[in-house]
């Protein structure tokens, strides 16, 4: 995989192997008109193997989703064929409409127009809880 092949865009690198497709779907990359390349199980000195996503456009990425799915991933911003910025992602404090509450007793189970909001309650153990009923995200 050669990131130089992108002129202006984003490379999501160091994705834990196996999580690339989930990210592709949650970030709704299928709705983009530009070229998007997913590399699965790409060799990595640091990680052994990794997934990588290359997006050939300068889009607004939902960093919260990225941080929730894989806080180890990194974002490279490419301008004129060069990496101009490297960003580490971190666990987002809040997730809005990324995951759904599975608690059948939660108000969101019967009022479906409500936003699905989860907050990070235990950073160490990556625990997110529903804002409304405090059920743990599954």
């Amino acid at each position, binding site marked *: 995989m050669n990131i130089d092949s992108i002129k202006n865009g984003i490379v999501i690198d160091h994705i834990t192997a196996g999580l690339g497709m989930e990210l592709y779907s949650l970030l709704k990359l299928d709705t983009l008109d530009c070229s998007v390349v997913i590399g699965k199980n790409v060799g990595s000195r640091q990680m052994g193997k990794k997934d990588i996503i290359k997006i050939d456009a300068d889009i607004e990425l939902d960093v919260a989703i990225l941080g929730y799915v894989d806080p180890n991933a990194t974002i490279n911003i490419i301008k004129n064929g060069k990496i101009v910025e490297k960003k580490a992602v971190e666990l987002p404090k809040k997730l809005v409409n990324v995951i759904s509450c599975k608690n059948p*007793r939660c108000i969101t189970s019967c*009022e479906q127009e409500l936003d699905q909001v989860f907050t990070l309650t235990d950073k160490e153990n990556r625990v997110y809880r529903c804002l*409304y009923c405090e059920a743990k995200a599954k």
Partner: protein
Amino acid sequence: MRSLIDIKELSLEEIDSLVNCALDIIENPAKYSEKCKGKKLATLFFEPSTRTRLSFEAAMYELGGNVLGFSEASSSSSAKGESVADTARMISCYADIIAMRHPKEGAPLVAAMNATIPVVNAGDGGHNHPTQTLADLLTIKRKKGRFDNLTIGLCGDLKFGRTVHSLIGAMSRYKNIKFVLISPVELKIPDYVKTEVLDKNGIEYVETTDLQGAMAELDVLYMTRVQKERFFNEEDYLRLKDSYILDLPKLQNAKSDLSIMHPLPRVNEISVKVDTDPRAHYFEQALNGKYMRMALILMLLGIK
């Protein structure tokens, strides 16, 4: 504008202030009898409740205010499909404060996010019931004179009991508290309460199945009901149910100043013979609930 959805939203100073206000109401009821004159409490009870609703209503009447509302979902617009958010917006036009009970967890929070008046959570499913915890706290204060240096026994259904979880959360913020968690193995306290509340706050606790064995060291005994439907089979229920019924023989080793509490309704988990024991404080606990609701209404309406 402030609401109360979860007891954790109140700082220790605010709890002290509410307790002091409630104690002053008890001493000087006449001083408070017109504090809420011209104010209206809307009791939105989407599921039946006797004590909590009547306690809120009595609290508002004793403050000189008025009450409107409904006591079951079938007599509200939710039966026509109105959302909690819309109900809260609409009631904000008619009342000054809302007390809401709802079978769905998080419904009062949704109401608070949309109302333009304060919302008090009067119980949302098995989730939160902060005014019950306020009643428990006032009872502890009046009977023990303190919130620290206490050994508190919690007995019965510790797995599903929301009042137990809230009380643990509230008391874990005070110094030198020890919990004795007494329950059948099937109804032990959930792991998250241990890791996220007890361990996180460095609170000492022991888990046991033996109520009588734990009795001697307790300053407070908080009883809850062991419900038959919580067991996988009737045989286990029949084997265990009597172990968690508090009667006079089980109190033989108890301290003379033990405080026996129960959120009520009691079914059979405390023998009626215990009712006349001076250590039985559960009916007074219900009365304390009214005083704390009065103090809370005043606080949320900004009335001094």
